[in-house]
C-alpha cells in the first residue's frame, strides 16, 4: 500500500507502480506520478516544515507552484542536492531523499519554535528598530543570529555534477499554460499553420482539469480531453509541447525564458540528459493562459498543518487518489470549495461542515450538500483552529453561536486570483475590476494576450471560445492563415467568481491572533496593520516593511489579502493603494539553468595562440592575459620563477631569446586616406613615414589621456599595419571605427582586424640576425638595408612574411609575422637555429622586465586613464604642427597643463636588493602623522638581473622635477627609502638596438 490515505479507485496513478523514497530519515512508499506532497499526505504526513520566522509547524497549503510552506531539501546524492524545492512540484522517484528545513534538532521538536512565543519581539520591521544599537553589534551579532534563526534551506556545498542545456527558439506563438485555455489556443494557432510552443509547469497537460472532474469537453471527461489534445499537438510538426517547463520570465520584445526540468523526476537519468534546459523563446505572439490561484482564508491560526486550499485537496483526491483527512472541514467565501467538499464526501470522507461566510451559496449547492449529508453553516466564520502539529478542531462562529468541530483537515477558499505575473512582467499594468473585485490584465504592452482564468474569465465555454479566438488571431498575426474550423464544446466547470479578500471575521483590527497572510514570509494581518500605523502608506512600502509578497513566493497567495488589509487600514479602496510589481522569476530558477553550458572550460573562452602546443612542450607556465593564455616563463629543471626569469632576462641581452608576441592587436588600415586617418587618431604624424618604415604611435581619448600605444608600419602608400596592446585590440578597433564613421566619414579608408591573421615570433638579442638569416629569403637583413624600425616583405621557411625590425627589449631584434597556420612550423625552424646558439624561449614576465629596464611603458599598467603623454615623458610623440587629432583640445585643459601633475619617473631603492611592491604609495615625509600626503604610487617594479638591482617605475606628483630626491614608500612592516631617477635603467644611450 502506498499510504493509508490512498483511496482505492480514486486518482489517476497506477497502484502497482510503487516508488520508495526517504523523508527526514524514514522510508516511505509513493506511486509513480506522485509529488512529494501527495506521497506524504498519502502516508498521513501533514507536518512538512517550519515557518520562516516563528518556526511554526507547517503543512502543505497547495498542490502546485504556489506552495509557500512545504519547501524541502531534495537530493539524489551529496552533490546533487537542492534546497527550497516545493514538495508540491517535486515528483517522487526511487531513491529520492527529502528533508524538511529550518528546524533543529527535528521537525517535530524544533528549538527555534521559541520564536513563536517571543513573537511580540518579532513584529514586522523588528530588525529595523530593535537591533540598531550598538552599531557594530549589527554585523557581528544580530545579523548572523537572525540569518541563522530565520531562513529557508541550506545551500549545497559541493560542485554540481549535473549539466544543463540551453536552446534559443523562435516561434509564431508561445502559449504559456496547458490547461483548457492554453490547449485550445495552441490547437487553434497550430491548426492555422503557426509554429507553436506550448509549455506548462506541471508534469502533464490539464491545468485545473487535473482536479475539476465535473468538466466534460467534446463529450470526453475534461482531463482525458486534455491528454488527447496534448498528444495531438505533440504529433504536429509545427508544435513543441514542453511539460515540467515553467515560463519564469517575460522580457522585452516578447522574449520569454522557460526552464524545463528534464531529469528531476527520474530515478536513473541517462548521463547525457541535461538536468534542466533553459529555453529562450522569441515569439511573435505570446498567449498567456496561466489560470488563477486560489486564496486561503485569513483567520486565527490558519497555518495549522492540515489546513489547505480547497482546490489542492481536490487535486490530491482526484489526481493522486489521496484523502487529505478523514474528517475534513470546509471554510469558504465562494462556491468553488463546495465541489471539493462534494468530491471528498462522495469518496467516503466525512465532511462535518461547510462554513460559508455568505448568507447564501450558489444555486443547488445547499441541496447537493444536504443529499450528501453535509452541514452547511452560512453567514459563519472559522475563528480559530486547534492542534499544533496537525489541526484537531475548528472553532466556528455564526448564527448558531460558537461551536468547536473536531476535524483533521480544513480546506479553505477565499476566491481566485488571476495569475497576472507574466503579464505584469511584460510591463503590462493591471486594472482593477470593481465588479468582480480583482486585478485583471489591462492593455497589452507587448504582443501578448491573456485568456481564460488569468484574464478573469470564469465561464468554461467562454474561456474556450476566447482561447480559440486568441490562438487563431495570433496565427493570423504571424501570417499563418490555414482554414480553421475548430469548435470545442465544454461544460460543467466550477464557478471561479466571487469570494473575499483580506481578513475574515474574528481576524479584524482588534484581534491579536496570528492570522497569516503570507505563509512563506510569516506575515500576519497584524503586521500589515502595524506597517500602516508606522506610516507606510504605499503598498510598495508595506511590502518592504513586512516582506509580504517577497522572496521566492512573490505573493502568489498573499498579495491580494495583504493589499486588502492595508487598504482597509488606510480607509482607501484597493486600487488606490495599488498593487506591487511582479518580478521574474515566477518560481525560483537554478543557477545551473541560467549558466547552462557556460561553466568549466566554457565559462570564458580561453584564447590560445599558434605556439601553445610548442610552449607547453618547452615547459612553459602560462598566465591569463585577458582571455589569452600566454607563456609566462619557461622554467628549466630545478628553477623557480625568479631563477627562470633571471636566466631568460640575461640570455636575451647576452645571446637572444624567442618570444610569442601574437596577441598584440593588429589592424590593417587600407585606403588612399589611411595616413590622413592615422594623423587624426594618433598624436604623431604619419604622412612622411615611408613605406617599409615603422613608428611608435600614441593615441589619446578626447580628454587628452593616453588610450593605447603601439608600433605602426607603413606597408604601402595606402596600407598600414597597426599594432595595439594585447588588451586594447578590440576597443582600439571600435574606437577607430567609431571616429571613422561619425567624425571622419569623408575619408577613404577601411579598417580590418588582422590580429589573428598573423603569428608573431619575436627574436630579440645580439644573435637575433644570426638566428633568422638562414631562414629568410628575399630580404636583405643588413643594418643598412634593414635598420631598426623597418619592415620588409619576403619569405621565411617558404612562407610569406612581414618581417619587422623592432624591439621592445632594447636589443636588436625582429618580429617575424607569418600567416598564423605557418606559425608553429616557422617557430620550430627558428628554435632549431636559436637553441644551438644558446638562445632561450622567454615569456611575458621577462618581456616585462626587459622593457622596464629600458623604461618602455605598458599602457594600462604604468598609465591608468588619467595620464597624458607629457605625464608619461612621451611629449616628444605629440606632433607640434598638426592642426587636429583626437585629444588635441583635451591636452589644453587647464588641469592637464598645470604643474604638480603625477608624472612617470624611475625609482631606485636605496638598498638595491629591495624590490618595491607594485601599487605601493609614495610619500615625501615618512614621519607625517596619518593620513599622510601621498605623492603617487609604484606602477612597475622588478628585480633586474641585467642591472643587478631592483628597478621601478612610479607615478609621482611633480616627479620630473624631483630627479635625485629621496622619497619614501611606507609599508606595514617598514619604510623603504627610494631615489627618484630617470626611467631608463639599462643602456641609457640606446646604442644596443642598432647593433
Amino acid at each position, binding site marked *: 500500500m502506498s499510504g493509508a490515505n490512498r483511496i482505492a479507485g480514486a486518482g489517476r496513478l497506477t497502484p502497482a507502480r510503487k516508488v520508495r523514497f526517504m523523508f527526514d530519515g524514514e522510508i516511505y512508499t509513493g506511486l509513480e506520478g506522485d509529488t512529494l506532497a501527495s506521497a506524504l499526505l498519502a502516508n498521513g504526513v501533514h507536518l512538512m516544515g517550519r515557518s520562516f520566522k516563528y518556526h511554526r509547524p507547517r503543512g502543505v497549503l497547495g498542490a502546485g507552484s504556489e506552495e509557500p510552506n512545504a519547501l524541502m531539501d531534495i537530493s539524489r546524492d551529496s552533490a546533487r542536492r537542492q534546497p527550497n524545492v516545493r514538495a508540491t512540484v517535486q515528483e517522487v522517484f526511487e531513491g529520492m531523499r527529502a528533508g524538511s528545513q529550518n528546524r533543529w534538532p527535528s521537525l517535530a521538536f524544533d528549538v527555534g519554535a521559541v520564536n513563536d512565543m517571543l513573537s511580540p519581539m518579532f513584529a514586522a520591521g523588528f530588525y529595523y528598530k530593535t537591533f540598531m544599537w550598538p552599531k557594530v553589534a549589527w554585523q557581528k551579532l544580530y545579523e548572523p543570529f537572525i540569518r541563522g534563526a530565520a531562513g529557508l534551506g541550506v545551500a549545497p556545498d559541493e560542485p554540481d555534477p549535473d549539466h544543463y542545456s540551453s536552446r534559443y527558439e523562435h516561434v509564431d506563438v508561445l502559449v504559456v499554460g496547458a490547461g483548457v485555455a492554453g490547449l485550445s489556443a495552441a490547437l487553434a494557432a497550430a491548426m492555422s499553420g503557426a509554429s507553436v510552443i506550448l509549455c506548462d509547469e506541471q508534469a502533464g497537460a490539464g491545468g485545473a482539469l487535473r482536479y475539476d472532474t465535473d468538466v466534460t469537453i467534446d463529450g470526453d471527461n475534461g482531463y482525458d480531453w486534455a491528454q488527447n489534445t496534448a498528444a495531438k499537438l505533440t504529433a504536429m510538426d509545427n508544435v513543441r509541447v514542453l511539460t515540467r517547463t515553467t515560463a519564469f520570465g517575460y522580457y522585452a520584445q516578447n522574449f520569454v525564458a522557460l526552464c524545463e526540468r528534464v531529469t528531476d523526476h527520474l530515478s536513473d537519468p541517462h548521463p547525457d540528459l541535461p538536468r534542466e534546459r533553459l529555453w529562450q523563446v522569441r515569439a511573435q505572439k505570446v498567449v498567456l493562459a496561466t489560470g488563477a490561484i486560489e486564496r486561503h482564508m485569513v483567520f486565527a491560526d490558519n497555518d495549522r498543518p492540515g489546513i489547505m486550499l480547497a482546490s489542492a485537496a481536490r487535486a490530491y483526491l482526484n489526481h493522486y487518489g489521496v484523502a487529505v483527512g478523514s474528517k475534513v472541514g470546509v471554510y469558504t467565501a465562494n462556491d468553488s470549495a463546495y465541489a471539493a467538499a462534494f468530491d471528498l464526501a462522495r469518496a467516503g470522507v466525512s465532511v462535518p461542515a461547510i462554513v460559508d461566510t455568505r448568507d447564501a451559496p450558489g444555486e443547488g449547492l445547499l441541496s447537493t450538500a444536504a443529499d450528501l449529508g453535509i452541514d452547511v453553516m452560512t453567514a459563519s466564520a472559522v475563528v480559530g483552529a486547534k492542534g499544533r502539529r496537525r489541526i484537531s478542531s475548528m472553532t466556528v462562529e455564526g448564527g448558531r453561536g460558537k461551536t468547536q468541530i473536531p476535524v483533521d483537515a480544513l480546506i479553505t477558499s477565499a476566491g481566485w486570483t488571476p495569475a497576472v505575473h507574466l503579464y505584469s512582467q511584460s510591463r503590462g499594468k493591471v486594472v482593477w475590476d470593481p465588479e468582480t473585485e480583482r486585478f485583471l490584465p489591462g492593455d497589452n504592452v507587448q504582443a501578448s494576450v491573456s485568456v481564460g482564468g488569468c484574464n478573469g474569465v470564469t465561464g468554461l465555454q467562454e474561456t474556450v471560445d476566447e482561447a480559440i479566438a486568441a490562438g487563431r488571431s495570433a496565427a493570423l498575426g504571424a501570417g499563418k492563415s490555414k482554414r480553421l474550423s475548430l469548435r470545442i464544446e465544454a461544460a460543467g466547470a466550477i464557478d471561479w467568481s466571487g469570494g473575499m479578500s483580506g481578513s475574515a471575521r474574528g481576524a479584524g483590527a482588534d484581534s491579536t491572533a496570528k492570522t497569516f497572510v503570507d505563509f512563506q514570509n510569516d506575515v500576519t494581518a497584524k503586521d500589515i496593520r502595524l506597517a500602516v500605523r508606522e506610516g507606510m502608506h504605499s503598498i510598495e512600502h508595506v511590502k518592504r516593511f513586512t516582506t509580504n509578497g517577497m522572496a521566492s513566493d512573490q505573493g502568489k497567495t498573499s498579495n491580494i489579502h495583504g493589499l486588502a488589509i492595508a487598504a482597509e487600514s488606510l480607509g482607501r479602496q484597493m486600487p488606490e493603494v495599488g498593487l506591487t510589481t511582479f518580478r521574474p522569476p515566477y518560481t525560483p530558477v537554478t543557477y545551473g539553468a541560467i549558466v547552462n553550458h557556460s561553466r568549466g572550460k566554457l565559462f570564458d573562452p580561453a584564447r590560445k595562440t599558434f605556439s601553445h602546443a610548442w610552449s607547453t612542450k618547452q615547459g612553459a607556465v602560462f598566465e591569463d592575459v585577458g582571455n589569452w593564455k600566454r607563456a609566462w616563463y619557461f622554467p628549466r629543471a630545478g628553477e623557480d620563477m625568479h631563477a627562470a626569469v633571471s636566466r631568460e632576462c640575461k640570455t636575451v641581452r647576452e645571446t637572444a631569446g624567442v618570444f610569442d608576441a601574437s596577441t598584440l592587436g593588429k589592424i590593417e588600415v587600407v585606403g588612399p586616406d589611411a595616413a590622413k586617418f592615422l594623423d587624426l587618431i594618433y598624436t604623431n604624424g604619419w604622412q612622411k613615414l615611408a613605406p617599409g618604415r615603422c613608428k611608435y604611435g600614441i593615441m589619446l581619448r578626447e580628454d587628452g589621456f593616453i588610450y593605447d600605444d603601439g608600433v605602426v608600419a607603413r606597408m604601402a602608400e595606402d596600407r598600414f599595419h597597426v599594432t595595439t596592446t594585447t588588451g586594447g585590440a578590440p576597443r582600439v578597433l571600435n574606437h577607430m571605427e567609431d571616429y571613422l564613421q561619425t567624425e571622419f566619414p569623408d575619408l577613404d579608408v577601411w579598417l580590418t*582586424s588582422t590580429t589573428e591573421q598573423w603569428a608573431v615570433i619575436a627574436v630579440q638579442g645580439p644573435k637575433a640576425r644570426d638566428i633568422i638569416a638562414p631562414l629568410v629569403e628575399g630580404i636583405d637583413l643588413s643594418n643598412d638595408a634593414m635598420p631598426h624600425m623597418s619592415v620588409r616583405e619576403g619569405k621565411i621557411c617558404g612562407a610569406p612574411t612581414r618581417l619587422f625590425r623592432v624591439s621592445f627589449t632594447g636589443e636588436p631584434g625582429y618580429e617575424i609575422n607569418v600567416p598564423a597556420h605557418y606559425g608553429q612550423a616557422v617557430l620550430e625552424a627558428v628554435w632549431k637555429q636559436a637553441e644551438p646558439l644558446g638562445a632561450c624561449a622567454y615569456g611575458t614576465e621577462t618581456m616585462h622586465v626587459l622593457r622596464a629596464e629600458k623604461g618602455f611603458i605598458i599602457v594600462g599598467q604604468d598609465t591608468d586613464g588619467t595620464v597624458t603623454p607629457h605625464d608619461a615623458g612621451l611629449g616628444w610623440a605629440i606632433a607640434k604642427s598638426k592642426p587636429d587629432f583626437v585629444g588635441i583640445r583635451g591636452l589644453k585643459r587647464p588641469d592637464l597643463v598645470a604643474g604638480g601633475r603625477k608624472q612617470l619617473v624611475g625609482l631606485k631603492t636605496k638598498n638595491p636588493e629591495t624590490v618595491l611592491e607594485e601599487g605601493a604609495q609614495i610619500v615625501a615625509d615618512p614621519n607625517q602623522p596619518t593620513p599622510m600626503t601621498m605623492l603617487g604610487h609604484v606602477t612597475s617594479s622588478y628585480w633586474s638581473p641585467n642591472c643587478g638591482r631592483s628597478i621601478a617605475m612610479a607615478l609621482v606628483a611633480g616627479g620630473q622635477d624631483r630627479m635625485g630626491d629621496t622619497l619614501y614608500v611606507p609599508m606595514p612592516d617598514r619604510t623603504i627609502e627610494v631615489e627618484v631617477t630617470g626611467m631608463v635603467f639599462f643602456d641609457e644611450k640606446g646604442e644596443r638596438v642598432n647593433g
Partner: protein
Amino acid sequence: MVETAAMILPHEGNAAGTGVVTITPAAFASRLSIRARAEAVAPLSRALGVKLPDAPKTSAKSRNGKRTALWLGPDEWLVIDEAGADLMAPCAKVKQLHAAVDISHRNVALIVSGKGAEAALKAGCPQNLSLEAFPVGACSRTMLGKVEVVLVRDDAETFRVEHWRSFSDYVFGFLAEAIRDPVI
C-alpha cells in the same frame, strides 16, 4: 636548405558527433575581407568570379561552387575560397576604390551537419535559424555562446561556422557539449 613550413590548423583532430549531427573541421580555405562602396561592387565581383551580394544575410557562390561571397555589412564582404586560391591578386587589378585584406589564417571553420545541426547551433545562437528565416545560402555575423562567429547555411542540414582561430577550442567545446542534448 630550410624546409618549407607546413600549415597546422587549430581544429586538427577536433571531431565529434552523435546519431543526428556531426562536427568536423573545414579544410584550409583562403579568405578575403572586402570593404568597398557601391561603384566597386560590380568590378570586384567580375575580378573574383563571384557576385558580391547586396542583400543582407545572403551569400553567393561562384560557378564552380568553390568560392562564396558573404554579405556581412553594407560595405563589407567575406569571400571564402575552398580551393585556397590567391584572392588578393585578382582584387589588386580592380581600379575602383576598395580595401582587400587577406584573412585566410585569421578564420577557421567547423562544419556542423545533420538533422540535429540547427538544434546544436540554437544552443548558443540567439538568431532565428529556421529554414524559413535562415534559408540555404543565408549567412550572418552573429554569436555562438560567448564568441563571435559567421554562420553560413550550406544546405538544409549543414552549417559552416567561421570564427577566429584562437576561439577554436571554445567553439568546438561548445558545440561538442551542445550536441549531447538529444532534443532536436
